[in-house]
C-alpha cells in the first residue's frame, strides 16, 4: 500500500503532463473562435514580449533557454518544463504558470511582475481551456530513461557470485597469479624480512617496529614467524587507531560545524573513539554499519549507540540559520548524510540523484528521497549520556547500603540516649531559647528536583549542588527517567505547629551562582511558573485528607510589573514570576494561605512544588508564620527547631511516645552535639549520593521533519511527501523490502537492516566495498580503483573474482575484518618485494596486476606518528577529547576543526573533512620539505633521536649510526652508508667546531635530521 502510494505521488508528474498534452489538443480543436481571438489579443503579445526570450526555440538557439520550457508553441505549453506541467487546462488555480506570474514561489517574468489585468487575462485563458493555435513542436532532448532491469545487470548490483577457487595455498594468490599469467607477467619475488616487517607494522598499526621487535622477527626462523607478527599486530590497540583513520576519512569526520562560525562540537570525539574501539574488538562489519545508521535506536540511551550515530551527523552544518534558509539547509544536511552513506558504505554517488535522475547509475530521483526519508526525524546535537550506567547504578546501590548502619545508629541513639538527653536539656535549656520570631525558617526533610541536586545547609538554606543535563537519561531512586529541560523542585517540610498563616520564599544571590544568581540561568535570572503547597498528615495511618493550600501572593521584594509574583500562584504554569532585570539581588516572596492551616494531629507534612521555566534558584529558603498580616513585617527570622520542640511538648507532655523519638532528633540536633552527630551523619550521607559522570556526545537527536520529494532538488518545488524506501535497483523481489519486511520498524533500523542484508538488501555491495577498502589500504590500490564509486562512472574491478572471493570470505567470517586482514597479509602478493622486473614493466607499467609491491608515502598522521616514534617520545594514551599539535599523542587524536585544519596534517594531504574520501591525494610540494627542514617538531625529534642513539658520550659513532638506521628505517646501514654518514658527521663537527664539547652531539642531530627528511623515512616498500 505504502509503495503504491509513493510511486503514484512521484509519478504523478509525467502522467499529469501527458494528460494535459492529450487534453489540450482536444480542447483546442473544440475551442471556439472567441477563445482563439482572446489568445491572439491578450496572451500571445504578452508571451512574445515577456517569455520568448528565455522560453522558446529561438532562446534555445541563443543558449538562453531556461527550465527546458517552451512557451512559443501549443505543444511547448502542454509539455511543460523541468518543473513539470505549467498549465493545468481549465484550472488556473492549479497551474504553475499562474503561481509564477503571481510571484508565488516562482517569479516570472524576472524583470518585474506583470500588471494585475494581464495576470487575470492569463487565468481566464487557462480557465477557457488554454486555446492556442500556435503550431510547432518541442525540440526533444534525448532523455536517459533509467531502466532498472538493465541496471540490475551492472556487476556491482548483482548478488554475490560463486567463484571457483583456484588451486593455490592461498586463493588470493591463485587469483592474482591467473591474471598475471594471462598477461604474460612473471610473479614478484618475496620481500626481505626487514622490509616486510616494516610494511606490516605501518600497515596495521601505523607505527614502525622498534629495533628489538625487528631483531626478534629476523631471528625467528619459524615458518609461522610472520603469521605470529600479524596476529600480534591485529591484537594491538594501535590497530584500531590506525584503521579508524581510514574509516574517518570515508565518514568525513570532523569536530566542528564548518561554515562561518565553525562551532566546535565538544562531544564529537566519541564517534572517533567508538570507531577505534569497534575495530579493536573486531566488531562484525554489518553491525558496525548498522550501529552507525541506527545505533541510537538499536541501543537507546547508551553512549555506544549515540557515539556510533555520530557518523550521520559528522558533516558540516551552517552556524547561522534564518527562517529563510532553514529548509534548504535541512535538505543540504540530508544530502550530506546521503552522500556519505552512499560513498562510504555503498560506493555510490547518491548525491547525484538529488536534483534529477542519476545521470549514469540506475538510481531514480525518487529513490534518493525514499532513502532520505529514513532520516526524516533525525536531527543533530549534543546529548549528555552516562558512559557507564551500570557502574553508576552499582555505586548508588552501594551508597544506599552504606546508609543502613548510619540509620541503625540513629535509631539506637534515639531509643537509648536521646530521651534522657532531651529530658535534661528541655528542663534546663528550653526555657532559655528565645521565643520564635514571626518567620520561622523551615528545614526540609526531603529534597527532590528534576534537574538539580539540592542539599540542606545550616539555617534551612537549600543549596544547589550540581545539575543534570536536559535530555540525559538517569537512574534515580531505582527508576530510569529522561531529564526534562524545565526544572521542578519538590521540597518536603514537617511541622508540629498549628495555625500556619503564611509562607515566605527567599531566593539568595551568591558568588557561586551564574551572574551571582539568584537564578541558575546563565544571566542569574529565574522564572517561577507555579508554586503549589500540599499539606498532609505526617502520620501515614491518619485518615485526614491532604489539602492543597490556596496561596495569596502578597509581596515580592523585586518584581516586574509585567511578570509579577501573582503569575506564580495563578494556577497557570504558562505565566511566570520572572526575575530578570532585578536579578543579582536577594529576592523574597510572601504568600498568605487563604485559610490558616490548622495542622494535623501528629504533625503536618508540607510539600512545596516549584515549577520553573528552564533552571531554578541556586540558594533558597522557606519560612512560615503562625501570625497574621505578614506583609508588614521586617525580615527577622529564627529556625523552626525550638518551636517544634515546644509544640511537641505541648501535645505529648514530657512522656514522649516511641514513634516521636526519631523525628525529635531533627529538631533537637542543633541543641545537642551527640544528637547532631548521629542525625547529620544520615543527612549528609544522603546528600552525597553518587552521580553519573555524564558526557556530552554529539549525535542524532529527535527533530527534523517530513521529507518531501523535491523536483530539481528545490525546496520550493515539492511533489508530495517521500515515504522511506530503498534503492529499487537492489530490490531482489519485485517489491520494496522496506515495506515488505517490517513497516512498523524505525525507518533507520529498517535501512540498517536492508543495508546489511545480503539476500534482500545491499549487503553484497556493502561487502564488496569494504573488502576493496581493505585491499586498497594494504596494497596501495583497490581492486576497484575508485573506492567510493562502484557505479558506471567508477572503475571496473581489475580482479572481479578475487573481489567476489574476498567478499564471500568476509561473510564466511561473520563479517569480521581481522581474519580478512590476516588472509591478505599472509598472501604472497602482499609479501612480495617492491623490486621491479623490467619485462613486467613493459607489459603493465601501472602495476595493475600487482607483480611488485608498490612503495607508497605514509599519510600525514603516520608521518607525525613515525616522527614521534623515532624520537621515542610518543604518548600511547588512548581515547578522549581531541588534542592539539603540541601533544605527543597519536595523530588520530588531533583536533579536526574544519576551518583550522592543523598545518602539519593539511600539508601532508589530510583531506578536507567535507565529503566522504576513499582515497587521499598524495602531493609533493615545497611546503612539506620546509616542514621537514625547518619545523620545530622535526628538529625536536631529531634531537630526541640523537639522545636515543647516543645514550652516553663514549658510545662509538658507528654504533649510533647503526641504531639510528634501525630506528628510522628498520634496517642497518650498508658499509658504504656507514662510511658516508661518518664523513658527513665529521664534516658537520668541523662546521660546528671540533673543540666544542657538544660538537658530536650537534653533528649527530644534523645527521638524524637528515634521516628524518629522507624518502626512505616516509615511504614504505
Amino acid at each position, binding site marked *: 500500500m505504502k509503495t503504491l502510494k509513493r510511486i503514484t505521488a512521484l509519478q504523478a508528474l509525467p502522467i499529469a503532463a501527458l494528460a494535459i498534452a492529450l487534453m489540450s489538443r482536444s480542447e483546442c480543436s473544440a475551442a471556439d473562435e472567441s477563445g482563439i481571438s482572446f489568445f491572439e489579443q491578450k496572451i500571445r503579445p504578452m508571451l512574445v514580449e515577456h517569455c520568448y526570450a528565455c522560453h522558446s526555440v529561438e532562446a534555445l538557439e541563443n543558449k538562453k533557454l531556461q527550465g527546458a520550457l517552451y512557451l512559443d508553441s501549443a505543444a511547448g505549453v502542454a509539455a511543460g518544463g523541468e518543473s513539470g506541467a505549467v498549465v493545468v487546462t481549465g484550472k488556473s488555480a492549479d497551474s504553475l504558470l499562474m503561481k509564477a506570474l503571481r510571484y508565488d514561489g516562482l517569479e516570472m517574468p524576472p524583470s518585474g511582475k506583470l500588471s494585475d489585468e494581464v495576470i487575470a487575462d492569463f487565468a481566464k485563458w487557462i480557465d477557457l481551456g488554454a486555446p492556442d493555435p500556435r503550431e510547432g513542436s518541442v525540440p526533444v532532448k534525448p532523455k536517459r530513461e533509467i531502466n532498472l532491469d538493465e541496471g540490475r545487470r551492472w556487476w556491482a548490483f548483482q548478488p554475490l557470485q560463486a567463484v571457483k577457487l583456484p588451486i593455490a595455498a592461498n586463493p588470493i594468490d591463485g587469483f592474482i597469479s591467473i591474471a598475471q599469467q594471462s598477461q604474460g607477467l612473471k610473479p614478484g619475488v618475496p620481500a626481505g624480512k626487514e622490509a616486510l616487517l616494516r610494511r606490516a607494522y605501518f600497515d596495521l598499526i601505523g607505527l614502525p617496529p622498534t629495533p628489538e621487535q625487528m631483531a626478534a622477527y629476523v631471528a625467528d626462523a619459524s615458518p609461522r614467524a610472520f603469521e605470529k607478527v600479524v596476529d600480534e599486530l591485529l591484537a594491538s590497540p594501535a590497530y584500531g587507531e590506525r584503521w579508524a583513520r581510514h574509516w574517518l576519512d570515508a565518514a568525513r569526520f570532523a569536530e566542528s560545524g564548518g561554515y*562561518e562560525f565553525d562551532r566546535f562540537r565538544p562531544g564529537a570525539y566519541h564517534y572517533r573513539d567508538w570507531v577505534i574501539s569497534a575495530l579493536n574488538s573486531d566488531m562484525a562489519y554489518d553491525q558496525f554499519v548498522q550501529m552507525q545508521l541506527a545505533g541510537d535506536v538499536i541501543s537507546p540511551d547508551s553512549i555506544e549507540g549515540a557515539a556510533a550515530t555520530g557518523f550521520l551527523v559528522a558533516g558540516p552544518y551552517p552556524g547561522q540559520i534564518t527562517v529563510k*534558509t532553514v529548509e534548504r539547509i535541512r535538505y543540504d544536511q540530508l544530502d550530506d548524510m546521503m552522500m556519505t552513506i552512499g560513498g562510504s558504505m555503498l560506493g555510490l554517488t547518491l548525491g547525484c540523484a538529488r536534483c534529477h535522475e542519476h545521470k549514469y547509475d540506475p538510481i531514480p530521483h525518487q529513490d534518493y528521497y525514499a532513502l532520505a526519508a529514513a532520516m526524516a526525524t533525525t536531527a543533530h546535537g549534543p546529548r549528555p549520556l552516562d558512559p557507564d550506567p551500570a557502574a553508576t547504578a552499582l555505586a548508588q546501590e552501594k551508597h544506599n547500603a552504606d546508609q543502613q548502619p548510619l540509620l541503625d545508629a540513629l535509631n539506637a541513639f534515639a531509643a537509648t540516649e536521646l530521651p534522657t538527653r532531651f529530658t535534661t536539656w528541655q528542663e534546663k535549656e528550653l526555657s532559655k531559647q528565645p521565643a520564635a520570631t514571626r518567620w520561622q525558617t523551615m528545614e526540609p526533610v526531603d529534597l527532590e528536583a528534576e534537574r538539580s541536586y539540592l542539599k540542606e545547609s545550616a539555617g534551612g538554606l537549600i543549596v544547589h549542588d550540581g545539575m543534570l543535563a536536559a535530555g540525559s537519561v538517569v537512574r534515580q531512586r531505582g527508576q530510569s527517567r529522561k531529564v526534562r529541560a524545565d526544572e521542578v523542585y519538590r521540597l518536603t517540610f514537617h511541622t508540629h505547629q498549628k495555625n500556619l498563616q503564611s509562607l515566605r520564599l527567599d531566593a539568595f544571590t551568591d558568588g557561586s551562582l551564574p551572574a551571582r544568581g539568584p537564578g541558575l540561568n546563565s544571566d542569574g535570572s529565574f522564572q517561577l511558573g507555579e508554586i503549589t503547597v500540599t499539606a498532609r498528615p505526617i502520620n501515614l495511618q491518619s485518615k485526614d485528607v491532604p489539602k492543597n493550600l490556596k496561596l495569596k501572593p502578597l509581596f515580592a521584594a523585586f518584581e516586574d510589573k509585567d511578570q509579577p509574583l501573582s503569575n506564580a500562584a495563578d494556577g497557570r504554569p504558562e505565566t511566570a514570576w520572572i526575575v530578570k532585570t532585578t536579578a543579582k539581588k536577594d529576592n523574597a516572596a510572601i504568600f498568605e494561605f487563604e485559610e490558616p492551616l490548622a495542622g494535623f494531629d501528629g504533625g503536618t507534612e508540607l510539600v512545596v512544588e516549584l515549577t520553573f521555566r528552564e533552571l531554578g534558584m541556586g540558594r533558597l529558603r522557606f519560612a512560615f508564620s503562625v501570625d497574621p498580616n505578614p506583609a508588614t513585617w521586617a525580615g527577622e527570622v529564627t529556625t523552626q527547631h525550638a518551636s517544634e520542640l515546644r509544640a511537641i511538648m505541648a501535645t505529648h507532655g514530657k512522656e514522649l511516645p516511641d514513634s516521636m523519638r526519631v523525628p525529635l532528633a531533627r529538631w533537637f540536633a542543633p541543641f545537642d552535639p551527640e544528637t547532631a552527630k548521629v542525625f547529620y551523619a544520615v543527612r549528609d550521607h544522603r546528600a552525597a549520593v553518587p552521580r553519573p559522570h555524564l558526557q556530552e556526545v554529539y549525535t542524532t537527536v529527535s527533530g527534523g521533519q517530513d521529507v518531501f520529494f523535491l523536483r530539481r532538488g528545490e525546496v520550493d518545488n515539492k511533489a508530495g511527501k517521500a515515504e522511506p524506501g530503498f534503492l529499487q535497483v537492489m530490490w531482489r523481489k519485485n517489491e520494496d523490502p522496506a515495506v515488505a519486511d517490517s513497516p512498523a520498524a524505525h525507518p533507520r533500523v529498517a535501512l540498517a537492516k536492508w543495508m546489511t542484508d545480503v539476500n534482500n538488501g545491499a549487503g553484497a555491495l556493502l561487502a564488496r566495498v569494504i573488502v576493496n577498502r581493505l585491499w586498497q589500504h594494504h596494497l596501495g590500490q583497490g581492486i576497484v580503483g575508485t573506492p567510493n564509486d562502484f557505479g558506471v562512472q567508477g572503475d571496473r574491478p581489475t580482479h572481479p573474482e578475487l573481489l567476489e572471493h574476498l567478499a564471500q570470505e568476509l561473510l564466511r567470517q561473520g563479517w569480521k575484518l581481522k581474519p580478512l586482514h590476516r588472509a591478505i597479509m599472509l598472501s604472497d602478493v602482499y609479501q612480495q618485494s*617492491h623490486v*621491479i622486473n623490467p619485462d613486467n614493466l613493459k607489459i603493465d607499467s601501472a602495476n595493475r596486476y600487482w607483480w611488485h609491491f608498490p612503495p607508497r608515502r605514509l599519510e600525514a598522521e603516520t608521518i607525525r606518528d613515525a616522527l614521534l616514534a623515532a624520537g621515542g617520545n610518543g604518548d600511547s594514551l588512548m581515547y578522549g577529547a581531541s588534542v592539539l599539535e603540541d601533544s605527543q599523542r597519536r595523530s588520530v587524536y588531533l583536533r579536526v576543526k574544519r*576551518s583550522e585544519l592543523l598545518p602539519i596534517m593539511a600539508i601532508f594531504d589530510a583531506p578536507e573533512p567535507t565529503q566522504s574520501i576513499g582515497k587521499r591525494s598524495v602531493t609533493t610540494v615545497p611546503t612539506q620539505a*620546509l616542514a621537514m627542514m*625547518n619545523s620545530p617538531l622535526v628538529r625536536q625529534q631529531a634531537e630526541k633521536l640523537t639522545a636515543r642513539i647516543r645514550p652516553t658520550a663514549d658510545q662509538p659513532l658507528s654504533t649510533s649510526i647503526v641504531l639510528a638506521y634501525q630506528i628510522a628505517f628498520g634496517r642497518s646501514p650498508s658499509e658504504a652508508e656507514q662510511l658516508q654518514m661518518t664523513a658527513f658527521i665529521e664534516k658537520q663537527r668541523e662546521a660546528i667546531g671540533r673543540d666544542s664539547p657538544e660538537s658530536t652531539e650537534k653533528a649527530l642531530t644534523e645527521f638524524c635530521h637528515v634521516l628524518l627528511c629522507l624518502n626512505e623515512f616516509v615511504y614504505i616498500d
Partner: protein
Amino acid sequence: MFNYDSAANINLPARRRFLQQAGLGFGSLALASMLREEHTATASEPVNAISLNGADPLALRAPKFPGKVKSIIWLFMTGAPSQVDTWDYKPELQKRDGETLAGSDPKTGFFTTSGKCLKSPFAWGQYGESGSWVSDLFPHLSQHVDKMCFLHSMYLKQNNHAPASLELMCGTNRPGLPALGAWMTYGLGSQNQNLPSYVVLHDTRPRGDDQIWSAGFLPKTYQALALDSRRKESIDNLTRDAKHSNQQQRTQLDLIRELNQRHAIDRATQADLAARINSFELAYRMQMAAPEALDLASETDAVHKLYGMDRPECETFSRQCLLARRLVERGVRFVQIFAGKGVDGDGSVNDVPWDCHSDVQVNHRSCGLHTDQPAAALLADLEARGLLDSTLVIWGGEFGRTSDSQGAKGRDHNPNGFTIWMAGAGVKGGFHYGATDPFGYKAVENKVHVNDLHATLLHLLGIEHTQLTYKFNGRDFRLTDVGGEVLKDILA
C-alpha cells in the same frame, strides 16, 4: 647553485627518467595535456582535464588559447559594501529618501529592513573621460575610473557572509569545493616555482575561513598560502632553525639529495620520489625567495607613501596591496586580499568590516579610508610598471546592501544586485555593464551570476570554463558548476 648534472651515481636510463619526473626539462610539459578531449583515459584513471599522474602538479601549463591575463589581484571588500554608496549612483534613491521602496522584499536581507528608501549619505561626482559616478568615499580610486570595467548587475543566491563568500569564490556555497585560485593553478600551473602560486592576504580571518581559499577536492598543492597581517605575513617553517647554519643545512640537503636519488633507483615507477627530491630544492630556494618577495623595506619611501603606509588608518591594507604587487611581479597567479578594519569605532565587526547594519555612513567612511588610497596606488603602480597589461585587479564584496534602511541608518545584506569592478588586462576601461533597477535594489539588466564572472575570468586566463574539470567521487566537477557564460561584451 644546484646543478643536477653533478648528481652522482645514477645509471643513465634511470637518471633520464628521473630528470623527467623531477619536472626538469620540457619533457614534463608533455604530461600537461590540458583538455579532456585530448586526453585518452584508461578505465581506472580519472578523466581529469589535467593529468597529474606523475607530473609536477605545479609545472607551467600552456593555456588552450592565449589569455590576456596572467595574474589576478582580488581586493575582497569583506563584509559587503553597499553598491548605492560606492559605484552605482541612483538619483531616484537620493530623491525618495524615506519613501516606500517599491518592490522591497522582506526576504532579501538577513535581518529586517524598513521598506523605506535610504539615500546615500555621501556626495557623488562624475570622474574621468567616462564620466563615471563615484561617491566621495573614494577620492583616490575615482581618479582611475577610466581603467575600470564595472559590473553593476552582479547577483548570487546566498544572503549571509560565509555562504555567499563560498559561492563567490567556489561557484556554489557547498563546502569542500575548490576556490577560483585553486582552479587557476590547477589549470595553468605556476609561473614561479620558488613561490606559491595562490596567496591570500588577510587580517582577521573572514567568515568562511579556509574554505573560501580551499583546494577542496583538488590536490592540496593548489591550496592558497594564507598570510596573516597580524603576524606580519610570516610563513610557517620558512626560517631555518638558528641551531644550524646555512652551510650546514646546505650540506644536509646535498646528502639528502644523494641518498634520495640512490633510494629512487630501484623504485623507478614512483614518480613522487623524484618530485620529493625536487621539492627540497624548491623549498630551499623558497626559503630565499619568499622573504625577498615579502620584504617591503626594499621599496622606496616614495612607494611606501604612495600606498599610504605612513597612515595608520590604511597601513595594513597598503602593506597588503604592496605585497600583492610584489608577488604578482614575481609570477604569483592569484593574490586575494581580504580587507580588514581600519580604525576602531565605526561599529563594524572585525571579520566583516563593510557590514554596515547600523550606520552606513560611519562604517563606509572608515572602510573607505582603509582601502581607497592603497587600492588606487596599486592600480597606479601596476600601470607604471607595465604590469596592468597582464594583471587584472578586481574590487568587490560578497554581496551588496539593501536600498531600504535597516534601523535608521544601516543597510542589510542584499545578494540580488551589487557592483564589482575589474581593471587591467583584457577588459574594457571606463565601461559599465549591466544595471540595477532605479533604486539600485535588484540587478535587472544583463544580470551576472558568479558562474558567469568565473567563466569570464577563466576565459581571460585562456581557459574555456567547461573544459576545466576534475573528477571527484564519480562526478566531473567544474568551477562554474552547471552554469556560466563568458561576458563577451566586457572583453577588450
